[in-house]
C-alpha cells in the first residue's frame, strides 16, 4: 500500500544491536499525523528498543530516521522533544519525592520555572480532562494519577508525536476508557500517537494502522481492524500457543489454606493496610486474585508467605494448623511454597548463581542440602540442573548468575524451583509479569498441571487475560479488601473491572444478571 502524504516520522531500516543480539533488524515504518499507530508485538519483540531510538535514548547502529521528510539524528531525549516527539514511559519515570508540578517542570527546558508550570498545568488539565493537584507529592498518587502526570508532562511540550509504551497495563477498565477518549481528542488535533501494546483488542479498537514486530523484525504492516484477531495473534507469536485450560480435579479437595479476618497495617509509609481478609483455598483448584498492583498485593503475599508473620496465629491456617506466627521457612516445611512478584532481587539474589539460588528457598527444607550446618553445594547444583532441564530454562553457561538470565527464563527457573518440591499449596504473585509468550504459556500450564495433581494454587495477578485462562475461581483485591471468590465461568470482565475500581459490590445476584 502506498501513501503519497509525507509521513510525520519515518524509520528506514533501523537496526539496533546489543552485543551480538540484534534487537531491531532493519525495521521500517511510516507514521502520519492524526493517526493512532500501533506497534504490536510480544515482550522482547523489540518494541521498546525501537521507540527508544526514536526518542533519543538508544542510538541506532544502522538505518535512518526521517522527521517530516528530513533525515534527522535524534541524539538525546532533549533533541527528540525539540523536534516535537514526546514519550509516556511504561515504567513510570516519575520522582516520588517531588511534587506534580516539579515532576513536570524537571522534564521541560531549563527556562520553565516550577511556578509557571503550575499555572499551565491547570489549563491542560481542564482541556483534556486530566485532574491533577500541582502541589501533591507523587509518592501519594495512584497508578492512574501517576500516568496522568506523565501524560501532562508530555503534552506540556506540545508534541506532534506522542509515544505511549503499554499505557493500559496499570489501569482499571474504566480508566482505560478515559484514556482512549483522550487519545481520540489528541488525534483530532492532528497529533500522531505511536501506541505500543501486546493487547489485540485494544489495538483493533483504537488504532488505524499497526506495525507488527517479531524477534526484532517487521512481520506485517496492516489495518488492525481489518485483520482477524487470530491472524494478528499468529503474526505476533509465530507459533500457536497452547492455552492452559482451567481443568482442576473433578472435585475440589479440602482447604489447604484458610484465612480468617486477616488485618495487617502496612509495613512501609506508602504501603496498603490489609483489612479483614477472609478466604479459603481448596486443593485441586487454581484460585486467582485480580486487581491493580498497589492495592495490597505485596502485603497479602508477605502475610501468606510468612515473610511478615501476623497475629493472631489463627488468622492463617495452613492444612488445618494455625500458622499466622510462623515464618516463611516453617511454612515451607509444611509443604507450602511461594513465588514472589520480583524474580530478580526477591525470589533470587542477582549476583548468585542458579545453583546458589537453590539454597535461598530450599536449604532449610531439603535435608540433603545441609550436612550439620554445612552446605552441600553439589546437591544444590544437581537440583538446579534438574530444574533447568525439566522447565526448559535456557542459559548460556551451565551455572550462570541469576542476573544473566532473561526475564522469561529466570521466571521459569523460579517457578521450577518451587514446583520441583511438589508443594501442596503454591502462592504465586504475578506469575508471568514481563515474560515472553512462550515462557508465559509454559508457566501457566505448569500451574494448572500442579492443581490437577491436587495442589491448591493461588495466583495473584494484574493480567485479566491470564486469570481467565487458568483460574477456576476469582476474587478481586481493592484498597486492601478482598471480595468473595466467584466461579470464573460467568464472571464478566466488566464486573471485575467495577470491583477493581472499588465501585462494585460482589453480590452474586448482580453477577448472574450480567451473565444473563
Amino acid at each position, binding site marked *: 500500500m502506498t501513501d503519497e502524504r509525507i509521513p510525520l516520522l519515518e524509520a528506514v531500516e533501523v537496526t539496533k544491536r546489543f552485543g551480538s543480539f540484534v534487537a531491531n533488524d532493519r525495521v521500517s515504518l511510516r507514521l502520519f499525523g492524526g493517526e493512532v499507530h500501533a506497534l504490536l508485538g510480544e515482550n522482547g519483540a523489540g518494541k521498546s528498543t525501537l521507540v527508544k531510538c526514536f526518542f533519543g535514548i538508544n542510538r541506532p547502529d*544502522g538505518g*535512518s530516521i526521517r522527521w517530516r521528510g528530513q*533525515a534527522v539524528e535524534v541524539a538525546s531525549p532533549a533533541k527528540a522533544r525539540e523536534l516535537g516527539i514526546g514519550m509516556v514511559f511504561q515504567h513510570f519515570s516519575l520522582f516520588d519525592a517531588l511534587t506534580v508540578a516539579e515532576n513536570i517542570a524537571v522534564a521541560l527546558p531549563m527556562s520553565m520555572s516550577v511556578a509557571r508550570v503550575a499555572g499551565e498545568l491547570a489549563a491542560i488539565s481542564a482541556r483534556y480532562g486530566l485532574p491533577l493537584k500541582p502541589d501533591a507529592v507523587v509518592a501519594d498518587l495512584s497508578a492512574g494519577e501517576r500516568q496522568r502526570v506523565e501524560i501532562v508532562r508530555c503534552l506540556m511540550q506540545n508534541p506532534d508525536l506522542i509515544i505511549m509504551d503499554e499505557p493500559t497495563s496499570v489501569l482499571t477498565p474504566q480508566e482505560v476508557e478515559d484514556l482512549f477518549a483522550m487519545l481520540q481528542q489528541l488525534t483530532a488535533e492532528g497529533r500522531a500517537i505511536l501506541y505500543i501494546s501486546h493487547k489485540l483488542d485494544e489495538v483493533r479498537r483504537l488504532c488505524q494502522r499497526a506495525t507488527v514486530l517479531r524477534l526484532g523484525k517487521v512481520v506485517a504492516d496492516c489495518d488492525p481492524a481489518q485483520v482477524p484477531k487470530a491472524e494478528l495473534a499468529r503474526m505476533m507469536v509465530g507459533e500457536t500457543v497452547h492455552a492452559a485450560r482451567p481443568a482442576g480435579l473433578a472435585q475440589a479437595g479440602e482447604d489447604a489454606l484458610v484465612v480468617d479476618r486477616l488485618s495487617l497495617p502496612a509495613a512501609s509509609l506508602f504501603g496498603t493496610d490489609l483489612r479483614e481478609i477472609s478466604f479459603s483455598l481448596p486443593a485441586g483448584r487454581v484460585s486467582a486474585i485480580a486487581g491493580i498492583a498497589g492495592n495490597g498485593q505485596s502485603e497479602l503475599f508477605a502475610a501468606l508467605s510468612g*515473610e511478615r508473620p501476623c497475629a493472631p496465629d489463627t488468622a492463617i491456617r495452613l492444612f488445618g494448623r494455625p500458622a499466622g506466627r510462623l515464618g516463611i521457612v516453617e511454612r515451607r516445611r509444611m509443604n507450602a511454597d511461594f513465588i514472589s512478584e520480583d524474580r530478580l*532481587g*526477591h525470589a533470587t539474589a542477582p*549476583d548468585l548463581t542458579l545453583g546458589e539460588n537453590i*539454597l535461598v528457598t530450599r536449604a532449610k527444607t531439603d535435608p540433603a542440602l*545441609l550436612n550439620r550446618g554445612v552446605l552441600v553445594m553439589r546437591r544444590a547444583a544437581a537440583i538446579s540442573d534438574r530444574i533447568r532441564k525439566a522447565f526448559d530454562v535456557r542459559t548460556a553457561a551451565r551455572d550462570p548468575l541469576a542476573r*544473566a538470565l532473561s526475564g522469561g527464563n529466570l521466571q521459569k527457573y523460579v517457578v521450577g524451583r518451587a514446583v520441583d518440591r511438589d508443594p501442596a499449596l503454591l502462592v504465586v504473585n504475578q506469575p508471568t509479569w514481563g515474560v515472553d509468550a512462550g515462557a508465559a504459556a509454559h508457566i501457566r500450564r505448569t500451574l494448572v498441571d500442579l492443581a490437577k495433581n491436587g495442589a491448591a494454587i493461588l495466583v495473584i495477578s494484574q493480567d485479566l487475560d491470564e486469570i481467565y485462562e487458568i483460574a477456576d475461581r476469582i476474587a478481586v483485591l481493592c484498597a486492601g479488601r478482598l471480595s468473595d471468590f466467584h466461579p470464573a465461568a460467568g464472571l464478566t470482565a466488566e464486573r471485575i473491572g467495577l470491583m477493581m475500581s472499588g465501585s462494585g459490590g460482589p453480590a452474586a445476584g448482580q453477577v448472574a444478571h450480567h451473565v444473563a
Partner: protein
Amino acid sequence: MWLRLERRSGRSAWMALLSPAAAFALTLVTGAVLFLALGKDPVAGLYFFFVEPVTVAWSLEEVLVKMTPLALIAAGLAVCFAASVWNIGAEGQFILGAIAGSFWPVVLPDLQGPLILPLMLLSGILGGALFASLPALFRVRFGANEILTSLMLVYVAELFLDWLVRGPWRNPAGLNFPETRPFHDWASMPVIGADRLNIGFLAALAVCLLLAFALSRTFTGFGLRLSGTAPQAARFAGISRNGTIYLVMALSGGLAGLAGAMEVAGPIGQLRTQISPGYGFTAIIVAFLARLNPAGAILAAFVLSVTFIGGESAQIAIGVSDKITRVFQGILLFYVLTCDVFILHRLRWVRPVRRLAGGS
C-alpha cells in the same frame, strides 16, 4: 572515542585473582612517584618501605606481631561488610576489649593462676562484642546509621581509656606516668618467637581460616552474604535482617576486643593511653584488600603490617615522615576498590555517534 563502564555477564575469574595484585602494583608505581615528589630516591624508598621489613629477622617478627591484630579485626570486619553492615568503629571495640581484658591484672593483681589469661581474653571478647552491640541496637531499634554511631563510639572509647589510665587505674608505683601497673606473668601471652611474637598470632590464623569456612560453606554464612547482597531475597529465605546485624556486629566487635586484649596481654604488657597505631581503621583496608574473604585477610594483613614497619624503617633510613604510611594505605585501598570494579565490569571504548543522516 570515550571510555565507558559496562557490566560483564558474569564474574571474571581472572580479574578476581588479578585485582589485588594489580592494586598492589599500582600502589608501588604511585609510591615511586610520591617519593620522587618528596625529593627522595624512589627505588630506595620502596626498598626500605616494602622489602627491608621482611629481610631482617627481628623486623619480620615485628611484621607478624603487628599483623596479628590486623588479621583478627579484619576477619570480623570482612564478615560484617559482606553482610553490608558497616562497622567502622573497630578501633573503639579494640580499646574496650583491651580495657575489659586488663580489668583482671590491674584491678585484681593478686588474683593469679593459669585461668587468668583465658579469663582476660574472654573478657576482651565480651567487652568488644557488647560495645559493638550498641550501634547494632541503635540501628535495629531506632534506624540510626551504624557508620556514624560506631565511629563516634571510637572517640568515646579513646577518652574513656585516657581517663582510666590517668585516673583510677594509674600505676600507684609508676611515678605518675599515664599507664597501669605492668601485667604479671600469668596475665601475659606465651611467646613463641624470639622476642615479642606470641601464640595470639596462631590464634589469629586459626580464626581467619575458621571464619572463611563458615562464611563460604555454612548456611549461617550464606545467610549473612545473602542478607548483604540481596536483602529481600534473604527475607524470602527466612533470614532476619535484624538478627544478622546483631550477629555480625557482635562478631566483629568480639574479635576486635580479643585483638585488644591480646595486644595488652602481649606486646604491650600493660594499659596505656595509646595502645593502637590505628589497627581498627587499617583493618578496614585489610578487609577490602582481602576482598571480604577472612582467609585472604591473612595475606592482606601481612601486606599492611609491612607498611607500618616500612614506614618506620623508611623514616630512619631516608628521612621521610612515617605519615607516609597512612598515605600508602589510603592509596592501596583506593586501587583495591577500583580494580575490584573490573571483576563485574569492563571498560569499553564507545565511538561518538555515527552520522545517521543519509542512511545506508
